[in-house]
């Protein structure tokens, strides 16, 4: 009986570790992120519950990410007041480069940094294999879309905001 129980616990542990390691997908609760923002204060992703959130992984040295920032500036200014937020995780090693890029791209949304590039803890937890990678999160904190761009992204944001 005792051995069986041990096996059962092992089984649960294995299942849990598989679930934890799997790539975050639609319908799943967003894994918590708590990282320092530009000011140095820790900002939690879960603190944005009640808002429609675009979680965006990027770095200053990533050309396509910088291009995407330009488009996000417009989207953000349009829907910010209606309950839309962007939570950008930079995997820049250099905080200076990160801050410079934020300024240059005129980013006013939430910016946090997890130094370490591909080895950054958040990048590993979220199984990020390329940047930019983004997730759309609904008001309940569930993942509802991945790597949406342009019109598709705007439509989804509008939809989730209930407009």
């Amino acid at each position: 009986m005792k051995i069986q129980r041990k096996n059962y616990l092992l089984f649960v542990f294995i299942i849990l570790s598989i679930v934890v390691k799997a790539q975050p997908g639609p319908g799943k609760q967003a894994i918590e992120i708590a990282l320092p923002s530009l000011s140095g204060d820790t900002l939690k992703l879960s603190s944005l519950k009640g808002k429609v959130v675009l979680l965006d992984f990027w770095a200053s040295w990533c050309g396509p990410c910088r291009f995407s920032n330009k488009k996000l500036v417009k989207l953000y200014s349009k829907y910010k007041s209606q309950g839309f937020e962007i939570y950008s995780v930079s995997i820049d090693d250099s905080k200076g480069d990160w801050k410079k890029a934020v300024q240059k791209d005129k980013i006013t949304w939430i910016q946090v940094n997890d130094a370490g590039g591909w080895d950054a803890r958040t990048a590993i937890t979220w199984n990020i294999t390329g940047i930019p990678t983004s997730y759309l999160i609904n008001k309940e904190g569930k993942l509802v879309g991945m790597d949406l761009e342009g019109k598709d992204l705007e439509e989804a944001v509008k939809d989730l905001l209930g407009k």
Partner: protein
Amino acid sequence: MKRMLSVVLFVFISVALHAQFTKASLQASGLTCAMCSKAVKVALEKIPFVQEVKVDIKNQQYNLVFKEGNNVDFDALSKAVEDAGFSVASLKATGNFSNVKAVKDSHAEVAGLNLHFLNGNDENLVGERTITIVDKNFLSAKAFKKYASESKHACVQTGKADDCCKKEGVAANARVYHVII
């Protein structure tokens, strides 16, 4: 005297045996931003003789450290990068050289690899030195063409031993890496 000679010989042989490429810096290129994908890093890390891969964002390159006591296979590096969907834009390898004379169009066996120097000022290479591999698949097509057109040797095109190499004892059709220093 004889004893001293054998000591000297022993030291010389052990240096020669320990000749190894220890590290390299590699640049990858492709249709999309190579650094924006984790694929190249992951592919390089999977190679058995690679100990560590560090992404050097400033210089847009991957800094590799090779495992001690392992012979390095440059083709495996280029294949890994290509399997990841990119190509090698530059490969500079650093190794310990023990008295290798860098003469234009001369050959040398270093760490189990046949090298063919495409340049060199007759310098004796001793200790840690860095070479650049200029074979096809190790640089841009344009840069390769430049090296290939500057040499009259067919082995530059194929990367395989040809008449010029055989004269110096390199087996026919053996892999020959063309390098500059």
